[in-house]
């Protein structure tokens, strides 16, 4: 009770404030419910709308009711202008982008959030509570959350932009021992600079602005260098990690403004994102550290180039083999996604189905560029859920499969993961295509997969290669199958 009385002395109770808190509470509940519903296929779409409704409530309530030290907000023209542009541009980009580019979009929007968090910190730094500074100098909690928001937000922004570039194929991986050392060095500089600024004692924060801008710049550079050495195949893990970073950066804003909806939303995403990151790492049987250090593939790994004989198969033979099979398993990969061939894959499936062939799909957890990415693409092509098997289940059925068609997948079917302890992907669960009777690999050429390692599957005696662009090849294959 004493505490409540003491508390009420400090807080000027106003009607608007309490209503605002109620709206924030409603918004927080909607976020939680939304996230919960998003984790079930049937309610997922509704869950997303609930969370969006929560966001609208929180934003509108803030605009109408927020007071800062009893002062109403101003600059409404600018605020509405920014929100309008953001809404229109965001809406158009998100609507127009191709389904295959979804991971890129998640990455770029994540970066925007990180940048917003960093900008908030940048602007709030000169406004740190004067009493706090008088009491403790800059070594106070407001300065701490501001710096954390600044550093995490800008790392997340720069990292997301690089991740976007890598997914888009515009930025190549750079791996070197020097970069690794530089990265460790960068972290030390960031921590040291933060401590240096915070121990400046009782000064006007505005005087330290140049140092804060330096901290921003170094954090941005670190964000770039942090993602640079990480292989393209690991981008989903990185995006998920950066996603949780932005969540934490948003939560720092929650501390700063004593704003509970920012706090709940941010932390919720921070913890959910972290767990999701670990789940993804687990699906690839790698540790997070391993991903971040970036030891996947590349020039440092000694690769034995056993050039066994590659056997090709003609379209007509493929068509005959497929038509006279009882059970066919499709293993789709990013190649299928890039070629936008998911509709054709399903068309082939339907024709074979009519001819009495049982067609299933084996979906590796990291097929495509993000976990679940392949499911989204195949669902777009109307492939029914029950045809999509997770790789464990597919492997159980594999012995009864007559033909496996690998379309544009490489690393997820590489037997080296099982039998070559020296391989960088050793230990990653794969789709065990060799348990089936025949394997057809549809591929553009003999290029390596994202992990840049040889695939002995292609040389195996059970395997036949069908070279060509996934879309054109499937198109021709459909014609051939129809003619039989």
């Amino acid at each position: 009770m004493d505490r409540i009385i003491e508390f009420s002395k400090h807080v000027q109770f106003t009607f608007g404030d309490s209503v605002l808190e109620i709206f924030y509470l409603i918004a927080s509940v909607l976020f939680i419910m939304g996230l919960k519903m998003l984790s079930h296929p049937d309610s997922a779409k509704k869950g997303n709308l609930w969370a969006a409704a929560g966001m609208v409530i929180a934003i509108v309530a803030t605009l109408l009711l927020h007071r800062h030290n009893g002062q109403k907000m101003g600059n409404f023209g600018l605020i509405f202008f920014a929100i309008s542009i953001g809404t229109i541009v965001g809406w158009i980009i998100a609507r127009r982008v191709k389904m295959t580019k979804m991971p890129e979009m998640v990455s770029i929007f994540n970066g925007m959030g990180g940048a917003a968090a960093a900008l908030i910190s940048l602007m709030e730094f000169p406004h740190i509570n004067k009493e706090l500074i008088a009491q403790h100098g800059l070594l106070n909690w407001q300065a701490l959350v501001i710096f954390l928001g600044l550093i995490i937000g800008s790392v997340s922004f720069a990292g997301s932009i690089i991740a976007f570039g890598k997914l888009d194929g515009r930025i190549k991986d750079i791996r070197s021992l020097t970069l690794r050392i530089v990265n460790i060095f960068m972290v030390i500089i960031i921590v040291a600079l933060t401590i240096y600024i915070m121990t400046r004692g009782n000064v006007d924060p505005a005087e330290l602005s140049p140092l804060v801008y330096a901290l921003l710049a170094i954090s941005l550079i670190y964000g770039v260098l942090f993602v640079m050495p990480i292989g393209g195949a690991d981008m989903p893990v990185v995006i998920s990690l950066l996603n949780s970073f932005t969540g934490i950066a948003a939560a720092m804003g929650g501390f700063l403004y004593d704003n509970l909806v920012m706090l709940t939303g941010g932390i919720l995403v921070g913890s959910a994102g972290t767990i999701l990151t670990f789940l993804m790492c687990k699906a690839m049987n790698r540790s997070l550290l391993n991903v971040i250090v970036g030891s996947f593939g590349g020039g440092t790994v000694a690769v034995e180039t056993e050039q066994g004989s590659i056997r090709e198969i003609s379209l007509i033979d493929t068509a005959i083999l497929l038509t006279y099979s009882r059970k066919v398993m499709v293993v789709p990969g990013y190649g299928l996604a890039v070629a936008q061939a998911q509709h054709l894959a399903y068309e082939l499936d339907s024709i074979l189905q009519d001819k009495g062939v049982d067609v299933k799909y084996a979906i590796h957890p990291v097929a495509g560029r993000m976990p679940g990415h392949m499911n989204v693409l195949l669902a777009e092509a109307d492939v029914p859920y029950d045809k999509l098997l997770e790789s464990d289940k597919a492997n159980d059925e594999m012995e009864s499969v007559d033909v496996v068609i690998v379309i544009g997948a490489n690393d997820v079917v590489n037997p080296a993961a099982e039998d070559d302890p020296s391989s960088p992907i050793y230990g990653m669960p794969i789709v065990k295509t060799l348990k089936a009777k025949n394997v057809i690999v549809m591929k553009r050429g003999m290029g390596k997969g994202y992990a840049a390692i040889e695939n002995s599957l292609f040389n195996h005696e059970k395997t036949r290669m069908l070279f060509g662009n996934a879309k054109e090849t499937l198109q021709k294959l459909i014609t051939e199958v129809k003619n039989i």
Partner: protein
Amino acid sequence: MEAILQFIYVNAEALFIVILSIFLGIEVISHVPAVLHTPLMSGANAIHGVVVIGAIIVLGHAETGLSMVLGFFAVLLGTLNVVGGFVVTDRMLEMFKKKPKK
């Protein structure tokens, strides 16, 4: 040290919320099927767009020209995060709807 204790005292309720939210986030995510990993990540991505509220507050009280410009961009980027995030998620999930055969 005193600063840390003060932080804990001033933000006691917030810290409770943080701890509980961490558990909540873990609980909500841990049983999700792999199929929904991407939409879920995208949905979570949209939710951390809540940072836009901080941006609105900052711009709403901005006085100097520089802080108005920075605040403007903060609100703009935050809104992009929110709108883009939710719309992309919605599009992904549209694919999961059971469509009647044409």
